[in-house]
């Protein structure tokens, strides 16, 4: 056990830091749930890619640098430290990308991964349906093989960023009359395909962060099936594992937030409940605990280990930490907490409020925390399924 960084790791950190200092936009980009913001974030993805920072853990052949997970964490630390924009392509690079590398054909990898890393194609996830949320196996959208194409019909919903995205990975039932986890397949679908109608759904903040997708005889080439026919559930579960794994929620995000919270508290310390100092310290501890745990897992994975139900612990922990951290910030802001960040007298309120609203989605998406606790209890602790 040695928690110091090697000279190579430190050199890489300096390289990222210097690049970010030179390239991160001075002002925050508009929200990527708006047309203007989406375009700006896509441009940022291209900038990243030009710096060869699109997805540093990927093989060089697909636009990556073949770095290990510890280097990935270092990259993320410098990314958040620099205040760089959110990754509009997160569903692609963090979820679909690793899944493609595991299940994709040579042709699929060559076709999709470089464009993904370059920010040229932004991906949305299209799994949920009105009657298939927590119960994903209730998926009803169908895909019937007709010649070299699947013909898709159905109704997908809660698809983040699909309003402006280029492609979607869609879970459909390819075996007619099949039940539950069987007979499903995962298809890669161009959102401009005729028969695909995307309708924005405003989120709690009024922005079109979600969409529903209506499929009416939309044709997707059979060559765009990811994995074997009927193996869709298996492929999706691997993706969900990546989602709960090390990618989606970097520790650096919370360490950065905890530091901003401490700074906010210090500025207002004399006006607020002294007990809020305990909450601020707790936020620091939680962010550090999360970082240490993720580093520990990264080292284990790099040494050939695997991640299982512990990933569900991660999901529960970061989502609850995120809410608590933002609640503390709102308590520090007191009567100014209700102000939107762009108001004339908003002062240093920042976007804690927006962050708080977003944090409320944490225990819901990527598998609700109720589902995650079931997984921890059943798979990690071995309690009976009942």
């Amino acid at each position: 056990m040695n928690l110091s960084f090697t000279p190579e790791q430190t050199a890489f950190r300096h390289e990222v830091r210097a690049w970010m200092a030179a390239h991160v936009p001075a002002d925050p980009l508009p929200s990527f749930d708006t047309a203007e913001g989406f375009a700006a974030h896509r441009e940022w993805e291209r900038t990243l890619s030009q710096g060869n920072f699109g997805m540093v853990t990927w093989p060089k052949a697909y636009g990556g640098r073949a770095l290990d997970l510890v280097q990935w964490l270092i990259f993320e630390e410098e990314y958040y430290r620099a205040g760089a924009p959110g990754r509009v392509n997160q569903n692609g690079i963090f979820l679909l990308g690793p899944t493609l590398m595991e299940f994709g054909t040579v042709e699929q990898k060559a076709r999709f991964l470089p464009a993904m890393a370059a920010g040229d194609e932004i991906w949305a996830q299209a799994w949920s349906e009105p009657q298939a949320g927590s119960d994903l196996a209730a998926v009803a959208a169908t895909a019937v093989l007709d010649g070299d194409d699947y013909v898709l019909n159905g109704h997908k919903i809660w698809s983040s960023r699909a309003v402006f995205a280029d492609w979607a990975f869609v879970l459909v039932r390819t075996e007619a009359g099949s039940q539950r986890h069987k007979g499903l397949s995962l298809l890669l679908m161009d959102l401009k395909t005729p028969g695909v109608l995307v309708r924005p759904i405003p989120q709690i903040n009024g922005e079109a962060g979600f969409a529903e997708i209506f499929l009416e005889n939309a044709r997707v080439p059979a060559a765009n099936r990811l994995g074997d026919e009927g193996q869709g559930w298996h492929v999706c579960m691997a993706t969900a594992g990546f989602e709960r794994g090390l990618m989606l929620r970097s520790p650096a995000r919370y360490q950065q937030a905890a530091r901003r919270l401490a700074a906010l508290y210090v500025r207002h310390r004399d006006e607020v409940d002294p007990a809020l100092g305990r909450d601020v310290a707790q936020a620091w501890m939680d962010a550090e605990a999360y970082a240490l745990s993720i580093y520990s897992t990264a080292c284990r994975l790099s040494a050939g280990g695997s991640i299982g139900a512990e990933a569900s612990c991660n999901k529960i922990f970061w989502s609850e930490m995120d809410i608590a951290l933002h609640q503390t910030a709102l308590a520090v802001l007191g009567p100014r907490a209700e102000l939107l960040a762009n108001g004339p007298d908003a002062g240093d309120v920042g976007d804690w409020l927006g962050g708080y609203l977003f944090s409320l989605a944490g225990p819901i998406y990527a598998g609700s925390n109720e589902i995650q606790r079931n997984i921890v209890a059943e798979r990690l602790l071995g309690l009976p399924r009942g």
Partner: protein
Amino acid sequence: MDFAFSDEQQAFAEVVRNLLRAECTAAHLRRLIDSGAARDGDRWRQVLDLGLTGLMVPDAKGGLGLDETDFVLIAQACGHAALPEPLVEQTGVVLPLLAAIDHPRACAWLDRTLTGEVTVALSHPSNPFVADADTAAALLLVHDGALHLVESPVVELIAQPGIDPFRRLSHVIWTPSTHTLVADSRTAAPLLATALERGAIFAAAQSIGLAERSVELAVDYAKERIQFGKPIGVNQAVKHLLATAQVKIEFARPVVFAAAAERAADNALSRARASHAKLAAAEAASLAARTAIQVHGAMGYSWEVDVHFLLKRALALSGVWGDESFHRARVRAHAISAADIDHSFAWTALKEVAADAA
């Protein structure tokens, strides 16, 4: 010792509830947002027609001469409906304050607000911004502790966008003068102190209403939404989330009612109680709204489901009329300042009876 509302108090509240059930549905709220207007004029007229504006104004000044316990259930109903119009602050805070100011201009404006012809907005030192100033005909403003009454045309308002689409906040720029003065600082201080207590108690009452509504929406959804072949409400996890929120409500509600009943005593306990009510009700509203979002899943994070109106109002109310830090400090001071003497509910009551007898 009687902890029950009178039949009359309950009937009053039921009238308000019935009106809001009909006129302040989520569909009404959405229409109001789309219209961009500050108020639904029809609804506000119907609310005014109930004749409640002067509920806490003395008989002699043209009001009903009632008190906080007569209004607390109505404030709760307004919270339940997330009513956009400023009934709670007008009836519960501004009009009684106007009525307590012994100045001819205050009397004149009181008469106009009693008819519902106009509203008067209050800039209270506890609140950094003024709610509903843009629709008010006049403003009560504080300068060096003194109260001034200023007509709207002579102030400049800088809008402050906030999270609650129905709370219109402003920063007010104005110039005090001897003409605007209606109460000097010595006279104003106790009036403003009372306004704070009332503001806090009625914000708490609204928060209870918001919390109750959140649980109702979540329960309705949990009964209907089918996953894994069953309504999600059969899952213990869902049941226990909602039960926990309900317990918070059950032990905040009587505190709010007691704070209303004790307000007039205007002593250390009544102030600690108002703070306790504000804290407990805000916590209940926040937990219930978050729980409702969680139970709704992705739906709960969408604009289409009504819970976000409740969440946003709860957020806004938690910081006004004294934020968490202010109220926790008051409660702590009370709880520990005399740890070795009797200072709880019943025992304090006893001491006061003893003091009265002496």
